[in-house]
């Protein structure tokens, strides 16, 4: 069991704010930290890693990591950390990046095999693609068989198809090693696929502690289908108005009446709801 009860004053975009978190995390679970940028997700992750100072108490399976201001050094925590920008050591080959953490060639080979990277083990990081680099970083983070694996937006720099592949790798490794994994992510589909618990942060506080379905499924009441999008433009067409809404990577048109059109502002975050039709999936 991991007990986290910490405070830290942060300088956010809207002035000072207090990061105050009091949570318990089950061993072996996969927790996603979600929320807008500047809500304190990454800071919380870095505090867990010991890379950022904080006050409070953190215990991990009986071991004391933080008490008051006394903090256990990052080096002694035995964690794995995957950075958004891979942070590989450019002077070392793929295999040496792994062996740097621990001289355990068997484990390195196993990890590289699981992520289909074994053939590239002698390559320097410079010659790898983004997805390959992040696989190496993931393997490297698991080399000391960490009690906690921390992932800071690990896939946000990758294209969607590569993301899906790496999500499988992350899940595979999480299960194989039985680590407790905590991941910062913005991507609902990623969180849905990987995490069994979502902590939603807002202004430094946990405002929602639930599963991915409840956190992101926006359906309410009798509405059957609901999508979050951004209103890009409202076009006047005779007596009607047409709203252009961006949902993910897609643009859709929604017909509005005058009253609705007047109440909406371009740039606003909106929900597209429908109840009359049963949506169907096709390939």
């Amino acid at each position, binding site marked *: 069991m991991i007990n986290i009860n910490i405070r830290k004053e942060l300088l956010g975009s809207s002035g000072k704010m207090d990061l105050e978190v009091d949570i318990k995390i089950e061993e072996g679970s996969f927790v996603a930290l979600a929320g807008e940028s500047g809500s304190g997700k990454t800071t919380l992750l870095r505090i867990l890693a010991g890379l950022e100072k904080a006050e409070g108490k953190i215990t991990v399976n009986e071991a004391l990591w933080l008490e008051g201001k006394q903090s256990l050094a990052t080096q002694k925590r035995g964690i794995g950390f995957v950075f958004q920008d891979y942070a590989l050591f450019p*002077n070392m080959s793929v295999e040496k990046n792994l062996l740097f953490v621990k001289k355990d060639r068997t484990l390195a080979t196993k990890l590289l095999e699981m992520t289909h990277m074994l053939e590239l083990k002698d390559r320097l990081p410079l010659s790898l693609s983004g997805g390959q680099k992040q696989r190496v970083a993931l393997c490297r983070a698991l080399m000391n068989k960490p009690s906690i694996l921390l992932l800071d937006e690990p896939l946000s720099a990758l294209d969607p198809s590569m993301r899906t592949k790496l999500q499988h790798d992350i899940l595979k490794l999480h299960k194989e090693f039985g680590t407790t994994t905590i991941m910062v992510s913005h991507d609902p589909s990623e969180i849905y696929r990987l995490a069994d618990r979502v902590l939603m942060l807002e202004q430094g506080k946990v405002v929602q502690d639930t599963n991915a379905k409840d956190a992101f499924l926006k359906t309410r009441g009798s509405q059957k289908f609901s999508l979050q999008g951004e209103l890009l433009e409202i076009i006047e067409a005779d007596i009607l108005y047409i709203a252009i809404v961006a949902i993910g990577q897609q643009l859709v048109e929604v017909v509005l009446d005058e009253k609705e059109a007047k109440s909406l502002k371009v740039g606003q975050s909106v929900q597209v709801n429908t109840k009359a039709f049963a949506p169907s999936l096709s390939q």
Partner: protein
Amino acid sequence: MDFSNLDFEPFYLSFKLAAVTTFILFLIAVPFAWWLSQTKSKSKPFLEAVSSLPIVLPPSVIGFYILFTLSYNSPIGAFFEETFGIKLVFNFTGLVIASCFYSFPFMVQPLQGGFETLNKNMLEASYVAGKSKFQTLVLVALPNIKPALLTALIVTFAHTVGEFGVVLMVGGSIPGETKVASVAIYEFVEILDYSQAHVYSAIMLVMSFFVLLGVYIFNQHHSKRIGIS
């Protein structure tokens, strides 16, 4: 022109002085530059200013203060001579001390610049992997700033070879002890022996050029290989 009686001792002294200075400064400057690059301390600008002084001060000012501090008439000079029997001025030891002050920023600045361009996350990844700051410095930081490291070493070496004012003030011109190449050239000019001055100067010019050319070729080659621009 007769080259057979050309005295190479001043060159030998210049290069010995440069090699010793570069070695000592490397040991001092690497931890110092590393600390500067990583610290958030308020004393950083102060230390940066002090360590950069030799770049802007006239060599005579540095030479004067070193003479003033290390001569037998000062407490430090008297202490060393009475306790260890070591004279700190007008000998090779004095030249090394003076050169270490004079060339300090030329070692620190490229190193600090190199350390500061390193990806912070990469260094943190090393800490997370359980490595100490010292291990991270030696195994991760230094190998990834090779061009900056080479620049620091070569520029310090070259700058020490090219020293004149400080050397003249602190060392004088004792043959075989403190008469380095730059001082020797100055003396040839003084006694109007232009042909010897020409030969010495040409040797200095050609050697300096090839050393610098070597550094730039290495850096170009290296940045292509590792992908650091």
